[in-house]
């Protein structure tokens, strides 16, 4: 089968590996055809988040996608390509710090029930593969958007009973945060862990309202265009 890989230009490799995962195909190409091919991988079992790429325009983990004849493999979007399929994740991951995606102080002796724990069980399954980040269309208009995985992470901590200052978490996601999302749901569709950042962002919006924040785009109806929010 033929696999097309976006390097400096698209290079086509021939491999005889029906039914293999894309990662196995990449390994075989590197081992026997072209050792200069660069891509990232780690655990081979969908938990380390290293090997996300785009196949025919859709984000997948190379280790859990079965390669098909004619596939076009490209690096993730919205992040600088270092070489071939390897992208620089520093910028994407920096949004975790900008969004203050952590528990604001150490919690001593806070008892959680099963119900408390189920609230953010799914969100804490995130493997930071950045598929959602790559699929997010907001970056086309706002490169400082905190983005789907960071906001899901904020929801994880805000919703946790151990967070003693949820308002500080909500304060941190007002600018370039929850209101900049278009709720297009692309992030949900590509998540290999079944997480919906869109849904988490909606929950963060509801929480923001509880703390007195409102959608700043409502202000635009008065004709003001200088508040920095995207205008479509």
């Amino acid at each position: 089968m033929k696999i097309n890989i976006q390097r400096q230009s698209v290079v086509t490799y021939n491999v005889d590996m029906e039914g293999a995962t894309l990662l196995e195909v990449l390994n075989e190409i590197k081992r026997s055809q072209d050792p200069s091919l660069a891509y990232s991988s780690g655990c081979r079992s969908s938990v380390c988040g290293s090997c996300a790429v785009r196949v025919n325009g859709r984000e997948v983990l190379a280790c859990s996608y079965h390669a098909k004849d004619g596939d076009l493999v490209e690096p993730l979007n919205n992040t600088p390509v270092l070489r071939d399929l390897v992208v620089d994740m520093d910028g994407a991951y920096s949004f975790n710090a900008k969004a203050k995606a952590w528990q604001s102080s150490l919690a001593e002796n806070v008892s959680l029930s099963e119900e408390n724990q189920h609230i953010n069980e799914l969100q804490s399954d995130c493997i930071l593969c950045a598929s959602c980040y790559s699929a997010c269309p907001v970056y086309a208009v706002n490169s400082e958007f905190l983005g789907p995985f960071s906001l899901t992470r904020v929801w994880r901590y805000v919703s946790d009973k151990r967070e003693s200052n949820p308002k500080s978490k909500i304060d941190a996601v007002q600018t370039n945060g929850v209101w900049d999302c278009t709720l297009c749901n692309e992030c949900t569709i590509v998540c290999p862990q079944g997480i919906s950042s869109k849904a988490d962002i909606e929950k963060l919006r509801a929480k923001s309202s509880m703390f007195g924040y409102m959608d700043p785009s409502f202000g635009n109806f008065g004709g003001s265009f200088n508040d920095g929010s995207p205008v479509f």
Partner: protein
Amino acid sequence: MKNRVIVVGAGGAGLVAALNAHENGAKVSVITKEYPTRSQTCMAQGGINAVLSGDEGDSIEIHVQNTLKSANALANESAVRYMCEEAPKAVAWLDSIGVPFSRTPKSKIAQRKLGGAYAARACYAQDYTGLKILHTLYDRCLAEGIEILNERYLLELLSKLDESGKKHICGVSLLNKRSGEIEIHKASSVIIATGGYSRLYHNYSTNSLSSTGDGIASALRAGARVSDMEFVQFHPTALKNSSILISESARGAGGYLLNSKGKRFVNELLPRDEVSKAIHDEIVKGEDIYLDIRHLGAEFIEKELPQEAKLAKLYENVDPVHDLIPIKPAAHYTMGGIEVDMNSSTCIAGLFAAGECANHKVHGANRLGGNSLLELVVFGRQAGVNAAKYAKEFSKEISHVKEKEFFEDEIAEIKRFTNEINFYEKQAYLGEFFYKNVGIKRDKEALQETLKLVEEMRDDLPKMGVSDKTKEYNTNLIEFLEFKNMLMLAEAVLLCAISRQESRGAHFRIDFAKTDEKYTAHTIVDSDKRVSYEN
């Protein structure tokens, strides 16, 4: 440089060490060849052991005894006792920073029973215990503003002799994967937390591709000692083709192990080394081995073993509801590592080690499930605290260390290697040889044959090298450097395995099938490859 602590490795042990060094006043930089959340720790599923209550009659003393028993008399009792006593505090701390542990209906942290444990004491977060601990530690490091330098590959540890002839650490040399530039980072203290060396077994390992033992090899080159390298734990049930782990919970739930004739041949709930040996014997007889969970029913599998079902479908193309799952044992955890004392310190002043790369002598000849996540919190903390203390008191001037040019020349030299031999093929071959000859069962002849192969490969390194001469993001070069490190550790493993003429835990010698009292000691290898025994 004064007060600066460098942590190499950003898995669980590295991040815990970094947080504790930071808390104790050090200026900390964490260095990783990938990104923190991609580290091997994310693959740990089972849980972290801690006795949280006396329900079920469990106690810290029983945790100690279970660990010692599994270690086959090769663990250090005071180190084990320290780890088990610290365990409840370690879990309470993880809970305090927000690790989303599963909970019981009584609002307690949920615990499951793992092999070799008297009671349910492994605290878990579904099947994602390691993932959730690692990510929460990472978030904590961000909260504390700890510097994390991603995609830097460790070349060497830099050290110097002082006036009295004692060696002390001065920093590290790194290859920045992105720029291809050499970086020299000076520091008064360095903590190695780079993980184990199971990738020696290549396609016969459950581990991440990154578990290549870089930190252990660098420490050995710098003059540190390594110990108990021959003890490698094989997990009984890895998928046959991919070596991806199928968790013990499948057997715990009532799964059978069958041979080609469809017959059971072992009690599936024996300890890991016993089950692996039984499977090995069947495979040697020519049998294929399968895990059978069909009788548990579709509903049960969907509810209780979804992860296993998903992995079997994805990587072996079988549906466990209707089909047998082909399996084999695979290298899973390396008990040996950098020799450290009761303060996590190596024999080089200022050089500390924690996690799977270090040998704190708590696992001995066979690690107990649930003790590796525990070890990385307890000893990661110890290493971090002690490194910070050392760095604070350190008053020497760090000068005259090897400069950038020295390492640039070394890389240039490797790029001049002739590349007549494809090292990827040699690496795969070495893995097969190791699995066959230095695996579950060993004997003198097979071990010596393997040592010869390793020596030949080492001599052939100049005929290998890289075809990609690019400076930026040269993964071909990084993988070759990893292969060089693995060859070095392969030799250390073999020297230990040949020397230990007895069977104990994960080290089974066909030619010395019994445990021999006189080997109740730790195998030490120094940088001159001398093997000795110490208690």
